[in-house]
């Protein structure tokens, strides 16, 4: 025979101050934890989402990022022979791209400069290798051969003076004004933090004789492996990866926040568990006579133990749910990260079901750790002393 759960709910309600305090405390801890998780996870998923498993990214041999890779015309020509890639009438669908850097001030702080990747592309090819994920939100695409750019949605949001009609400056060897004619999105991938313009124009103003990278489409993983092996092989001798693989390795600097959030949750979770323990010890001490009565009536030690542990869990879980609810407030908040390319990538925080799940598990762990000792003390009490005391 187990004790009714109602009994626990009522006991918690009978001590409103410490119940509310402990709940809020757990809510703060769990809310912070969910937030930190979102910071790391969302950064990672933004990068992972950018990378398409069916897009092959080709870089020069020793390059670990597009910003330090150089591909000449000859090398691009060799790629025409790549087996397994998607073709149209005239050959494989291939998008040679050149990546440079621009900088500007953030909208909210005069003194902070941020960098954006400037990507020179052939618009149609670039859209084709991105599976039509490029959508124009406002304005229109740039015209080939003109000093026009379209900016990613995140770039427009982060940078001052990057709205349609504004002029921005790009280039080395003489900086040129470019007109913003459109805003595009790629549904939350890192390309949203870029500026796109016509590839030949960008190569010209940045004084680049070569391209940075080339992208090609493959129908499936199998074909992808064939293509990658061919490109990495002696005939072409370039470095190819799936786009997903590339972007996942780029985001490695998120380990700092990852380690940070683990350390934080251990420290704060312990503190919260101690608080739960305090509350539960007081609950046990205040109910000694009640426990004696329950034991006298015939409830066993296990019943008492379970009942108090359940009470602690209920407390922690209420706090956990409240904490998750609080963390939803930061859902969609924008943060920046700086991958190895030195260009800022903005991303939106997402409180995912996975984060909620982990957070609730941590809350349960806090409740369990905090209530097991007090519950054990309650269960251990002998009936006679319990009845005599208090």
């Amino acid at each position, binding site marked *: 025979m187990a004790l009714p759960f109602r009994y626990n709910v009522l006991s918690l309600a009978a001590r409103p101050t410490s119940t509310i305090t402990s709940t809020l405390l757990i809510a703060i801890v769990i809310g912070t934890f969910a937030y930190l998780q979102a910071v790391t996870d969302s950064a990672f998923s933004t990068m992972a989402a950018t990378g398409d498993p069916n897009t092959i990214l080709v870089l020069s041999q*020793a390059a670990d990022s597009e910003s330090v890779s*150089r591909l000449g015309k000859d090398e691009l020509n060799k790629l025409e022979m790549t087996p397994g890639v998607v073709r149209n009438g005239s050959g494989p669908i291939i998008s040679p791209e050149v990546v440079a850097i621009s900088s500007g001030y953030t909208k909210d702080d005069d003194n902070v400069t941020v960098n954006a990747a400037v990507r020179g592309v052939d618009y149609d090819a670039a859209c084709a290798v991105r599976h039509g994920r490029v959508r124009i939100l406002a304005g229109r695409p740039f015209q080939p051969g003109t000093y026009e750019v379209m900016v990613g949605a995140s770039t427009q949001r982060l940078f001052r003076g990057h709205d349609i009609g504004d002029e921005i400056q790009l280039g080395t060897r003489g900086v040129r004004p470019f007109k913003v004619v459109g805003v595009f999105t790629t549904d939350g991938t890192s390309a949203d933090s870029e500026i796109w313009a016509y590839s030949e124009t960008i190569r010209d103003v940045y004084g680049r004789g070569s391209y940075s990278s080339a992208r090609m489409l493959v129908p499936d993983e199998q074909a992808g492996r064939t293509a990658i092996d061919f490109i990495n092989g002696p005939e072409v001798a370039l470095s190819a990866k799936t786009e997903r693989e590339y972007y996942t390795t780029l985001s490695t600097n998120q380990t700092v926040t990852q380690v940070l959030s683990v350390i934080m949750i251990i420290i704060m979770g312990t503190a919260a568990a101690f608080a739960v323990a305090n509350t539960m010890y007081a609950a046990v001490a205040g109910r000694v006579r009640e426990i004696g009565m329950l034991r006298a009536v015939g409830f066993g030690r296990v019943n008492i133990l379970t009942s108090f542990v359940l009470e602690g869990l209920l407390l922690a879980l209420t706090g956990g749910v409240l904490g998750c609810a609080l963390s939803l407030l930061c859902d969609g908040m924008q943060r920046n990260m*700086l991958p190895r390319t030195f260009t800022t990538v903005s991303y939106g925080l997402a409180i995912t079901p996975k984060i909620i799940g982990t957070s609730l598990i941590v809350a349960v762990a806090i409740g369990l750790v905090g209530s097991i000792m007090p519950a054990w003390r309650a269960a251990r009490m002998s009936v006679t002393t319990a009845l005599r005391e208090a």
Partner: protein
Amino acid sequence: MTRTTVLIKNLTRNRLRTTLTVLAIALPMFVFTMARTMVEQVHEMLAESDLKLRVAVHQKLSFTSPLPQRIREEIEGLAPEGYITAVCRTSWFGGRIEGKPAAFASMAVDRDTFAKVYAEFEITPAENERFQEERRAAMVSPELAKSQNWKVGDRVTLTGSLPPNPKMEFVIVAIPPKMSRQWFYFAMDYYDETLRKLTGSPAGVNNFWVKCSSPEARQWALTAIDKHFASSENETRTELESTFFAQFMKSGGDWVGLTWNVGRLIVLVAVAVAFNTMSMSFRERTREIAVLRTLGFSAGKIVRMVLSEGVLLGLIGGLIAVGPIYALTHLTEFSIPRMGTMQIPNQTAAIALAVACLCGLLAALVPALMAGRLKVATALRKVV
């Protein structure tokens, strides 16, 4: 016996609870202390770098777009007599050791001016002489030398991470004790020569670090250099060293700031824990407080007593949080990956203790007021 004795005795009443509470206060306060120390360290680094009177001159839009080497002479020629102490060019190399994926901070610098512009490294004349004489000379920070097990005289081969990814051999000529973090410096002329051989074009320069002789000279540099290069094909931007470094932190997700925000937020945890304890122990001691009132302890004294108990609780928690790490970082070389050696500043330790006491005070406020307002006759009658 004094009133303090009574106070301390009260804390020993429920030892388990006091211990749990004190630890639960100490944990978040520990995070607070560490977070603040990190922020302080970053601020100090930025503030210190401004004391060095250096400005960075780089390409207008990004330091990643290199400028030609000759700009150095132009800057030197531009300055009024005595304004500029020296100019040191830097080129990012990003060398990596064969077979190891991570590149570390390595740069080509001007042989002749490096020691002068980076005076804080306290490079000795003997070390500097060796840096001049050996073509492949490199200077590394003690931290890097230690992690790679390098000694003066060692030969090291690194591959650059920028195209055309040159593979270069270096000889370590000095490990200056004051050189910070994981830096590796070698001579610009050697880099330039290598690149010319490989590609036919010279090495580009990321930054021209201009060491000024006075704050006025620096003020001049901040505007005059950019004005000179405006609408030339090499437009520049000149900024304070601190501004230059701050961009990496801000745009990189600012995890120091993130830690600090979290560190401040979880002080609330300490307050909540202390409040929980104070209100529980007040409830259990209602009658005792009433007895003290009958003995002639005034309401004010009781309020002060409860408040002091809260402060004491916070203070002990604070001492546990700050004490050991303070001692550890002051008595030994304590370093954290990516942050370098760290030492809890006295001010931070004091602030953390003060915040801990304040937490206790805040937590005790409501219980103290309740204790002060207690109706003695009713409380004595109440069966607790």
